[in-house]
């Protein structure tokens, strides 16, 4: 596959499909790569892989727990990349991690290692516009799409710059807060989705607090799709097997397709 993450997602969106990107913390269980396959088989349009970090500032209890578990099991960036290189899935894989893991070697080496293993996107939530320059250059040089976050608190000028500099898609935060399941859809999410859609033709995906199929479908309708993380990781930590996680992703897929334009 030589298409970029962005080209892949735009092509799918342009068929009228709402995009679905489920998340798994790499290394959370010994057979975590089975989960990636299950997601892909269940109709994911891309899969987000969390590279666990000891101090995940933007994550709520569920992903903290998944990260701690993966680290305790000896998960390393090198180990994850070796396993990723053996994966055979037909949708793009996106790494999500914190700056500290990115700066261990040079950002150029980090990005090169990701692309060498077949990853096509990268999300670094603690690297905002003012700090992202070097990483953005390194990612661009490697053909790796660096996805930027947009928040309900971002000014219009910042949203414009974020939509211009983000690659792959724009990650719209549904709320001010950490990852984790939540009840209702905040008004600010709807507003942010509308504003971002007005600024860019890049796909806009909502993330943070997407908790169930109905909610996913409603939110996705305000943009181009959703990222689902904590709801899946909660099930996994409670003992769900890859096939059950796949079934759940399939149920979200159906809800999105039902609500598609």
């Amino acid at each position, binding site marked *: 596959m030589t298409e970029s993450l962005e080209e892949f997602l735009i092509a799918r969106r342009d068929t009228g499909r709402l995009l679905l990107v489920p998340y798994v913390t790499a290394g959370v269980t010994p057979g975590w790569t089975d989960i990636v396959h299950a997601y892909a088989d269940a109709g994911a349009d891309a899969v987000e892989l969390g590279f666990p970090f000891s*101090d995940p500032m*933007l994550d709520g209890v569920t992903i903290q727990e998944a990260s701690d578990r993966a680290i305790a099991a000896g998960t390393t960036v090198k180990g994850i990349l070796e396993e990723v290189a053996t994966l055979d899935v037909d949708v793009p894989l996106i790494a999500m991690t914190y*700056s500290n893991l990115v700066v261990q070697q040079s950002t150029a080496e980090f990005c090169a290692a990701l692309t060498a293993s077949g990853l096509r996107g990268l999300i670094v*939530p603690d690297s905002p516009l003012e*700090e992202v320059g070097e990483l953005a250059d390194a990612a661009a040089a490697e053909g790796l799409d660096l996805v930027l976050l947009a928040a309900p*608190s971002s000014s219009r000028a910042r949203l414009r710059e974020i939509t211009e500099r983000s690659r792959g898609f724009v990650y719209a935060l549904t709320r*001010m*807060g950490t990852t984790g399941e939540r009840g209702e859809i905040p008004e600010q999410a709807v507003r942010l989705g509308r504003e971002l859609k007005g600024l860019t033709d890049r796909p806009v995906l909502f993330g943070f607090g997407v908790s169930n199929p109905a909610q996913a479908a409603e939110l996705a309708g305000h943009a181009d799709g959703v990222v689902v993380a904590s709801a899946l990781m909660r099930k996994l930590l409670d003992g769900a097997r890859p096939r059950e996680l796949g079934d759940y992703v399939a149920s979200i897929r159906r809800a999105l397709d039902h609500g598609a334009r």
Partner: protein
Amino acid sequence: MGEMSWSRRQGVTVPAATRAMNDPGATGRFGTYGGRHVPESLIPACHEIEAAFREAWSDPEFRSRLDTLLAVYAGRPTPLTPAWRLSHELGITLFLKREDLAHTGSHKINNVIGQALLAHRMGKERLLAETGAGQHGVATATAAALLGLKATVFMGERDIERQELNVLRMNVLGAEVVPVTTGSRTLKDACNEAMRHWVSSVDNSYYCIGSVMGPHPYPWMVREFQRVIGEEARAQCAAELPVGVPDYVVACVGGGSNAAGTFAGFVDTTARLIGVEAEGGAAATFGRVGVLHGFRSLVLQDEDGQVTEAHSVAAGLDYPGIGPEHAHLRDGGRARYETVNDEEVVQALLCLARTEGILAALESSHAVAWVIRAAKSGEIAPGSTVMLTLSGRGDKDIASIKELL
């Protein structure tokens, strides 16, 4: 509140020309360190705080209100006490800058009164804080009570156990203490939790960071609020010492706020600046470049970039990072960072208590321990003058000390 003249502050006049540790500008970088490595959601809050601080810091009314509170409420200036008997024993001239005598018992109050005034000026209702030893938590609870704000303090479960007295003090002062049960259950995890809470309550809450760490403007702002230690000490040394400036200026370093405030007063002099870290939390000595809690600096971490837990007898020094400006001062050679072990620290605490009748905090005793060691080994030449910032008092540590004896 009325105008407070310098004469009320025990004749201490502060020279204006001690500004070598400067404004890091809009990017908040000290060399390659510092910056603003936080999620997009927090960026507007950082901008808002930076703008508010810049405005307040150049507003004579704000400065005068702060100076007044520091004087009539916090008890500044703190004295510079000659350590008569210990000096004699070590063959040096040792002065102690007595932050233990400031209200609430440590230097933390200097920063907190500044930030609480700022939060109040910005119309925030609640102060959020992380705390290790509990001194910053107590100071925050105190300033909140003083200004009619609410306070929520995040504290690792392990620190809650070993700093019980300070937890009780916070409760009495009306603050909510939230136990943090993740990770090492110490200061670093309390910081994570405070940041997470801040993201979700940024509209009405102000995150009152307790050391020279976090995203810009905090490392700079906290150093500016702590600068009063160094400026007073500089003026006091000028009055006390024949040559005006000590040979050594020494302070303990957790995140590095008392050291930064102290160094700021002497950075443009010939004094050697020494920061003393706990051996088990010595980021300046054993750390590598990393990004933690919103800033780039030296961080204790394993080869994969997982942050390691710091271990020290002093809860306030159990931090795996160091303020970005310290990393920069270290690289440039302007300051030097040393380590001492728990055993030396406990001995130093007892030594100071028994020679001077001063019960210092375990954190502050790190600085004392290094001076004792260096004077005995001859590293500090006999006859040298040493100015040591005694960052806090040791009452909170009595239970720990009892166990260690």
